[in-house]
């Protein structure tokens, strides 16, 4: 999900010419590949091929951007949560997402790129974030469904990355995943209360939210494997260990069962258990919608980016003040 860069960059990479490598370069690369094959972690100070560095910066920063843009749809309900307990849970959750953004920007910075540069790429539209956050949160049930499905899909996607070859990213992911599973349980719990103790109106609200978020959640795993050209090399580097379709299948299998427990219907008439495969079959995903939203034409793309840019621009004088003060302090200390 948060790793969608890996999928969309494949389209952009087509047609790029591979430069000829020197013998020395080839040897270094072979040694690097051998370390990866041996399951060693690559650390920031280690030599790495430029393409590896670039791919990681792109993936980690997209992940970080997704965390902070993801604060917006949920932040939309912080001031309207229906009980004080839910308000506290939601505010803490959104705060966690900010924390994920911080660890991930820090991991990307170890690769020699600053947070400001990465944010500039986000604000100028050059960098992407997960397209799931371009959908609106219309009712309170959306908050529960995001926890259940979106955090759920994020975990499914990210757990394999705990073994990613780049140490700082792998370690950040371990922390992130722990909190994401907490978020998923809280989301499920919020929905469960509405379904089991709620009014018919509340149950309808949950069903409506599930109807709207189900397909976008499946899209979070990225395009089908056939269209995902980058797969092989990223898999070797452990940046992406399990294919999009495999992860999506795992997610469908897990959530189909959870939907039964909740008593909601997943909006797919073709969804059914296939004993022969040992998996659930499910209907076709509207990939045109996916590419449309990735390409900027989702319901909230403009608003989400504008909200981030506004927060950044409105905060410029605050950051300038902090820098000016720090510089003045440094001068004073030198003088003293």
């Amino acid at each position, binding site marked *: 999900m948060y790793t969608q860069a890996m999928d969309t960059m494949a389209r952009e990479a087509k047609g790029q010419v591979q430069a000829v490598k020197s013998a020395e370069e080839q040897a270094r690369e072979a040694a690097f590949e051998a370390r990866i094959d041996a399951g060693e972690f690559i650390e920031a100070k280690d030599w790495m091929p430029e393409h590896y560095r670039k791919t990681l910066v792109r993936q980690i920063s997209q992940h970080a951007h997704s965390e*902070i843009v993801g*604060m*917006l749809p949920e*932040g939309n309900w*912080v*001031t*309207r*949560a*229906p*009980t*004080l*307990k*839910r*308000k*506290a849970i939601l*505010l*803490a959750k*959104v*705060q966690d997402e*900010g*924390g994920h*953004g*911080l660890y991930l*920007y820090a991991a990307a910075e170890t690769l020699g790129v600053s947070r400001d540069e990465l944010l500039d790429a986000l604000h100028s539209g050059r960098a992407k974030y997960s397209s799931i956050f371009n959908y609106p949160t219309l009712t*309170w049930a959306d908050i529960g469904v995001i926890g259940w499905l979106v955090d759920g899909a994020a975990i499914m996607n990210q757990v394999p990355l705990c073994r990613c070859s780049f140490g700082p990213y792998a370690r950040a992911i371990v922390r992130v995943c722990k909190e994401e599973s907490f978020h998923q349980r809280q989301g499920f719990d*919020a929905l469960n*209360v*509405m379904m089991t*103790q*709620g*009014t018919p*109106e*509340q149950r309808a609200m949950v069903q409506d939210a599930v109807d709207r978020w189900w397909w976008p959640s499946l899209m979070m795993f990225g395009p089908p494997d056939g269209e995902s050209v980058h797969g092989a090399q990223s898999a070797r580097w452990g940046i992406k260990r399990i294919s999009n379709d495999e992860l999506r299948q795992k997610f469908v299998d897990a959530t189909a069962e959870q939907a039964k427990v909740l008593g909601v219907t997943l909006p797919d008439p073709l969804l059914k258990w296939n004993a022969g495969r040992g998996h659930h079959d499910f209907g076709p995903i509207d990939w045109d919608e996916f590419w449309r939203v990735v390409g900027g034409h989702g319901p909230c793309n403009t608003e989400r980016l504008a*909200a981030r840019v*506004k*927060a*950044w621009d*409105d*905060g*410029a*004088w*605050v*950051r*300038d*003040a*902090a820098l*000016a*003060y720090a510089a*003045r302090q440094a001068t004073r200390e030198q003088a003293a």
Partner: protein
Amino acid sequence: MTAGNISVSETPLVLYTLRRADDALILGHRLSEWCGHAPMLEEDMALANMGLDLLGQARELYSYAAKVEGRDNDEDKFAYLRDVRQYRNLLLLEQPNGDFARTMVRQFFYAAFADLYWRVMMRSTDATLAAIAAKSEKESAYHLRHSSEWIVRLGDGTEESHRRAQEAIDLLWAFTGEMFEVDDSERGLIDAGIAVDPAPLRAQWMKRITGVVAEATLTLPNNGWMQQGGRSGRHSEHLGHLLSELQSMPRTFPGATW
């Protein structure tokens, strides 16, 4: 079930507790409005953190008020089913966030007071209030440190940040007097050692904020006129808008369980 207002038996102890609970909820809510829109990610985290502290204080105080009142009210009914005229928070805390300077000055004025106040309240003869005070004091100390640092950075930062911080001080100053007021309802609790008299804390509060404001190269207004009314439900126009957002769900779905 109705989404209309609850009625509250405002005995002195219930009223006292609701006033502090409302302070914490309203300021916590204001801080939560920043969520995702702060000048930097670290401040998104810090503002949410302080908001969560205050929300936690509010929940404990509301629960205690419900227990003391002994009717079927609870934390959510107090928060979601009282209207503007039933809210008892300080006017300072309902003032809109404005820019970051205004949010920080509001936080600074209040935390400098709350930190002193809760510290003395730790000696309350009411064990529950003393326990809440102990927790709140720790949290306020952090809020004070955080906001003081920002007052200094903003005041002694750039020309623009200095101007904005000074404007925030000038605007919010008139709301600070209310923190030190006592009415008859509270006087009895003070005499019984349950509550503390905030009036004698004013000198210490002044000393604290004067130090920070001076370091920030800012100034405090000479203007002695002070706004009041929050403690008896005479609020600014801002509170109604805050409540209409805060309360929209329980008002729309009466009797629902979330």
